[in-house]
């Protein structure tokens, strides 16, 4: 299996994605942002389509769109709770529409759309792996420096205010990091299934681990397991890798919920 260069690239990229998603996911879940993350990935779809339209790589188009819009989306979805879901629907709809428009204008066939929306393993070149690695390292380095303040702001927003943490600055930095992570993760699971790596592993980890660092390690483990096993099953069966990764992560999350309800009963 590893004699094929595309499989090597896929495993390399998948591992990077799993690490970044596991770590970022813990904050996504703590900050209650799974849907906001999903919206970013839909914006990413429009960006990728735009990239194809003007002759960039899909990853660059995605990065451009998600980074610029992440802050805007953050501001909008910070609005009144009751309005939030509608605002997110409007943004998602608008950007998916734009994505379809760019794809149709660029005269590319529909397989392009499928690979952006649902991910593609074969499409990842060595050069893209290098770019993803650079982005991942960048995300991790920034996280390293803001870790303590981000942790306080994410897990105890009320307390963070009294610690004089600049909450809106932390939010903006986090959203930009999230835009990078979404763009990187979308390369393998596709923009429609960002949840699968940026939310589910972290959401599962919180039922087993009770410190932020333990949650991160466990979320990385869940994500890596899903990606590696999914790639393998995809290779063997020739079925879509995304299907396997999504199923594995969903099963892990389901098991975590069952474990939790059993543990609660016996308490």
């Amino acid at each position: 299996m590893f004699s094929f260069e595309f499989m090597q690239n896929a495993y390399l990229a998948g591992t990077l994605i799993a690490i970044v998603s596991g770590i970022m996911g813990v904050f996504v879940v703590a900050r209650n942002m799974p849907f906001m993350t999903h919206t970013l990935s839909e914006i990413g779809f429009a960006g990728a389509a735009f990239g194809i339209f003007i002759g960039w790589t899909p990853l660059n188009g995605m990065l451009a769109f998600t980074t610029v819009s992440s802050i805007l989306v953050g501001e909008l979805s910070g609005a009144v709770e009751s309005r939030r879901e509608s605002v997110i629907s409007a943004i998602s709809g608008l950007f998916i529409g734009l994505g379809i428009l760019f794809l149709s204008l660029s005269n590319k066939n529909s397989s392009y759309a499928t690979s952006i929306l649902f991910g593609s393993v074969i499409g990842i070149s060595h050069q893209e792996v290098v770019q993803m690695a650079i982005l991942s390292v960048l995300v991790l380095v920034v996280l390293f420096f803001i870790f303590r303040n981000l942790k306080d702001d994410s897990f105890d927003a009320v307390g963070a205010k009294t610690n004089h943490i600049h909450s809106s600055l932390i939010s903006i930095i986090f959203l930009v990091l999230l835009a990078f992570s979404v763009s990187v993760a979308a390369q393998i699971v596709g923009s429609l299934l960002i949840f699968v790596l940026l939310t589910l592993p972290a959401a599962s980890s919180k039922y087993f681990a009770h410190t932020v660092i333990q949650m991160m390690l466990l979320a990385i483990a869940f994500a890596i397991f899903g990606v590696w096993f999914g790639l393998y099953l995809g290779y063997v069966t020739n079925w879509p890798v995304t299907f396997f990764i999504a199923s594995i992560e969903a099963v892990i999350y389901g098991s975590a919920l069952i474990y939790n309800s059993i543990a609660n009963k016996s308490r």
Partner: protein
Amino acid sequence: MSETLISVEDLSLSFPNHQVLSDLTFKVQRGEFLGVIGENGVGKTTLIRVILNQLKPSAGRIKIKNGLKIGYVPQFRNVDVEYPLSIEDFISLNFTGIKLPWLSRKEKQKIQTVIKQVNLEHISKRPLGLASGGEKQKAYLAQALINDPDLLILDESTASLDPNTKRELLDVVLRLNKALGLTIIFVSHDMQVIHEYPDHFLWLTKNGYTAGPISELHNDSKEGEYV
């Protein structure tokens, strides 16, 4: 011997539609246990926010001792039953700043010290989301203690607790006050515990305020609207 930590003079604060605090004058000395009492809406939390420098007074002055370290336990927290962090890790959240992600040995020791101070040793590894109301308040208190404050502000910390748990928490606070000389501002609308624990009071009402040593509160409260 006594040292003034906070000195408030003729302080007033009004929001666009209404006046909340007017011509308030009082002092907080080091080592004091001050109970701030009053009905909902008279400006207790507003006063705290002025002390925390989150609000500016409309008139008057507030002087806070240079370099005074304040530990604040806010009234509301977003901690639901699925909140994952252990009590220990929750307490560590207050170690903020641009530092290494993991805790130093000194920081770990400090966490164990404050956990002992609030009597949570037996459940320090349990998720905070599964702790009882009283245990949660103790964890919030421990978190506020982590940076060695001179002054501890408790905003309605006992509001949702049953009488026994309330006393358990306030016994801990009183011990911190007596043994460590920690200055306390305790905000509450519960007249009974204000009589029992603090040594001074500040009673805010819609029309003004009274303040003084706790022995003077007793007579007032009989005439007042409180039971």
